[in-house]
């Protein structure tokens, strides 16, 4: 692959590129879905190809192909320059890149048990044990279990001399039970919704979940939700579990602090941001309990890596410190536009065929102190919500409505009745201003979100979020009808 990348780089430079990088990838994935006693789908995918990104006449061009020949490499390099020169006819500001040291490196994410070495029969058997158990509950309509494994080997060469090879393995699994009665549908999942929990790890992650051991509980809860009272529409104290805090961080902090959004580059599709560069080091984003980092260096996150897809070292940076906005997620281009010295290394592409974009690394709400029980103990009257179910937020990431699978009343510091269809709404800085406690390190976990969408053509990225349960005061719950 690297020979092709070199040929593509040489062709691009020969055609007039002032900067070029070439990225090749071999992606292997396996997706398994079991429903009750039946394998619903079992798909294995390999994707091999390469792309060339160039700057010429101050503008970007990119071309990609799955044809792995020397002629195609030369053609791609020249094509990317042709595209860049076309771009240059409609620019009013030349692209400048902040400097980055040259890196020559190899890196692999840690894996104990390579998921692609595990017999398929074992994976099917593990899931079927859980799904059959769920469907033994006669009130459960669908018991479904999924596993997903991805191994990506990427090679990156740049005209500045960087030469980076990385191998990343991501694994994920989960189960969900769906109950139906009189046109009403309720779902419970474990360890998280939307295909479960993901991490940069091997099959050991799946084994640690004990999916079968949680099957009966979530089946029972899915059925019990059908008879539970609705979550009330009120203003109250809300405690969110770590999974829902993950979604809250993702939507209302992760996306608004992406510098391409801040600079208007995603305006027509994903939207912009309610924060701007002048807000840096001044805007109060939330209470002083709010500390958020973007950290590609922690082990095990879906946003953990040594180098991003433009060859910048993965880093740990503060985004919000004691409630004040102090940083953005940046690229070499956007860092230059805001006058920073260095990109903080967040450019990633879904595959070899994509132009890299600013994507969340692991966006983390740093832990506070105490346990979930401690958070609940300080609530006389409130609601505890668990496991994300739905999300919607406006184009500036300000007005949001999020929903969870299940909730319980909190009365005098203890959990009470189960509640169904819990939802809450808020305005981002007002909501985070109500944060008055985050649970401690023992409750803190790096969750994985495998389905973050952005860009045109659309790219789906796997990102991480370290979170613990957190408590928010004066939250509007329910859905105004």
């Amino acid at each position, binding site marked *: 692959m690297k020979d092709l990348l070199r040929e593509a780089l040489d062709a691009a430079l020969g055609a007039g590129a002032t900067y070029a990088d070439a990225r090749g990838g071999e992606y292997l994935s396996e997706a398994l*879905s*079991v429903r009750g006693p*039946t*394998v619903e*789908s*079992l*798909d*294995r*995918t*390999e*994707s091999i*190809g390469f792309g060339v990104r160039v700057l010429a006449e101050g503008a*970007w*061009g*990119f*071309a*990609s*192909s*799955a044809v792995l020949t020397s002629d195609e490499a030369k053609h791609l390099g020249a*094509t*990317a320059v*042709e*595209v*860049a020169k*076309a*771009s240059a*006819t*409609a620019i*009013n*500001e030349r692209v400048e890149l902040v400097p980055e040291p040259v890196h020559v490196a190899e890196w692999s994410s840690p894996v104990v048990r390579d998921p692609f070495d595990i*017999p398929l029969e074992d994976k*099917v058997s593990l899931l*079927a044990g859980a799904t059959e158990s769920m469907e033994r509950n006669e009130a459960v*309509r*669908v018991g479904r279990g999924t596993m997903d494994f991805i191994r990506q080997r990427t090679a990156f060469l740049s005209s500045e001399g960087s030469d980076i090879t990385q191998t990343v393995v991501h694994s994920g699994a989960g189960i969900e039970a*769906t109950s*139906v009665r*009189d*046109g009403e549908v309720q779902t419970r999942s474990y360890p998280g919704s939307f295909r479960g929990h993901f991490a940069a790890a091997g099959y050991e992650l799946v084994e640690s979940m004990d999916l079968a051991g949680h099957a009966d509980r979530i089946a029972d809860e899915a059925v019990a939700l059908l008879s539970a009272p609705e979550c009330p529409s009120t203003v109250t104290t809300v405690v969110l579990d770590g999974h829902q805090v993950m979604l809250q961080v993702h939507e209302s902090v992760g996306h608004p602090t992406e510098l391409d959004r801040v600079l*208007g*580059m995603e*305006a027509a*599709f994903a939207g912009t941001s309610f924060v701007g560069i002048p807000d840096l080091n001044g805007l109060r984003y939330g209470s002083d309990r709010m500390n958020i980092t973007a950290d590609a260096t922690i082990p095990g996150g879906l946003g953990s890596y040594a180098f991003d897809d433009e060859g910048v070292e993965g880093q740990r940076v503060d985004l919000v410190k004691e409630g004040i906005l102090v940083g953005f997620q940046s690229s070499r281009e956007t860092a230059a536009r805001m006058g920073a010295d260095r990109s903080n290394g967040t450019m990633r592409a879904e595959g070899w065929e994509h*132009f890299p974009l600013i994507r969340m690394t692991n966006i983390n709400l740093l832990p506070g102190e105490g346990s979930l029980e401690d958070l609940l103990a300080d609530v006389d009257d409130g609601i505890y919500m668990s496991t994300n179910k739905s*999300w*919607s*937020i*406006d*184009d*500036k990431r*300000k*007005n949001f409505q999020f*929903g969870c699978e299940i909730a319980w009343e909190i009365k005098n510091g203890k959990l009470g009745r189960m509640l169904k269809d819990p939802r809450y709404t808020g*305005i981002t800085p007002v909501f985070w201003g109500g944060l008055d406690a985050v649970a401690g390190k023992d409750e803190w976990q790096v969750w994985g979100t495998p389905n973050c*969408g952005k860009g*045109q*053509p*659309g790219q789906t990225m796997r990102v991480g979020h370290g979170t613990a349960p957190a408590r928010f005061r004066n939250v509007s719950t329910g859905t*105004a*009808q």
Partner: protein
Amino acid sequence: MSVLSRSGLPLDHDDARRAAQGVLDFPGSEGVEVVVSASSSGITRYANSQIIQNTVRNEIRATVRVVTGDRSASATTTQLDEEHLVMAAGRALEAAKASLPDPDFPGLPTPGDVGRPEPVMRVDEATGATPPAARAEAVGRILAATGSDNTAGIYETGVHSYGVFSSAGIDCFDAFSRCNTTCLVDLGGATGWGEASSYAAAEVDEEAAALRARRKAERSHNAMDVDSGTYQVVLEPPAVAALVDYLAYMGFGAKQMIEGESFFSTRRGEKVAADSITITDDVRHPASVGIGFDFEGVPKQRVAVIDGGEATHPVTDLRTARKLGVPATGHFSGSNEFGPYPFNVVMEAGDTELDELIGGVDDGILVTRFHYVNILDRPATLLTGMTRDGTFRISKGEVAEPVHNFRFAQSVLDALSSVQAVGREVVSIAPDYSSFGSTVAPALRVGKFHFASTTSH
């Protein structure tokens, strides 16, 4: 710059068939199906009134499904040579053997069972061969038309080929081209939107879309706060398309009905919308962009899912059709986990001009488009989302002052039940996240539409 064959396609029928035939008799299998797709596309993104990203992609993909007994599994590769296809077939066979008995597996279809599809072949060669310079020129025309220093959007062209081949005799091929443009104009926080899409670039008037966006932005200055609540609304085609797409996702597939998650599960045969509402899946509608068969090679039927307001038929694939005891409509999505899906939804046009739709509103809201729609309650078809890029008060039949954006919380079927008039013009909307499929929608005047809250812009 072109990788297109003499046919003007990234892959023609003969090449696709030749690649697939190498594995149709794969040793150890009892049946093999190969779905081949190829595309050649370019997308030019602009923001802050300049081109910011510009990409050219040439992609090939082959998915090999292998059958052994009542078990099957699939493997996909991006390499179309025999070595990689044989490896894919081997991986699929290994996976199928590791699978569990599947008593609902319908087997691979034969042409005798399902017929042979007529290709749609809505291909415009010039669109498929559009060079980067021509896309940049189109963006230049858009920027000139808006005259703004803060315009953003895309101009995209491409051509896409699909073939399905099987050891059971399926041999079908189709292709389409597409040109799609979007335009957002931001005049200091006052935003407007325009878009256009067709199989042929010559039919896409990007300057007209840009001017629509500019006019809406100009009218959006000094937006007012308006109370949330239930309003009579006029929804323009992009807003209608967003609702209809989610309605189809939530409930038009037979699998969702069988599993009890669709409105069809409890309301089939009932009136679920106004008499004026007919929603079909119809790839052969003049404004649709797609192919004439599904990913099992079954000919795609026109299905009136909601016909004159009545919930009639969900779309099916072979598996769900067998369960329901009905013929397959040709809507296999490519995923057994998801089941059948309508990729070419069409809401039929009415007979009312947009001005008349607005003219019939004494006090209401005009919505240009929605943003970040998501599901709150699937069987109830309850959605939430935001308005965006042109939300106005309608007063005494005229578009009046701009208003701050709303968050809505609304059952789609309840909204469609209160439709008072349907627009005469239908618009083709390209999907956000894929090059496959289209949604065709008119504007609507809706009697009751609920906005739950407002935002500050």
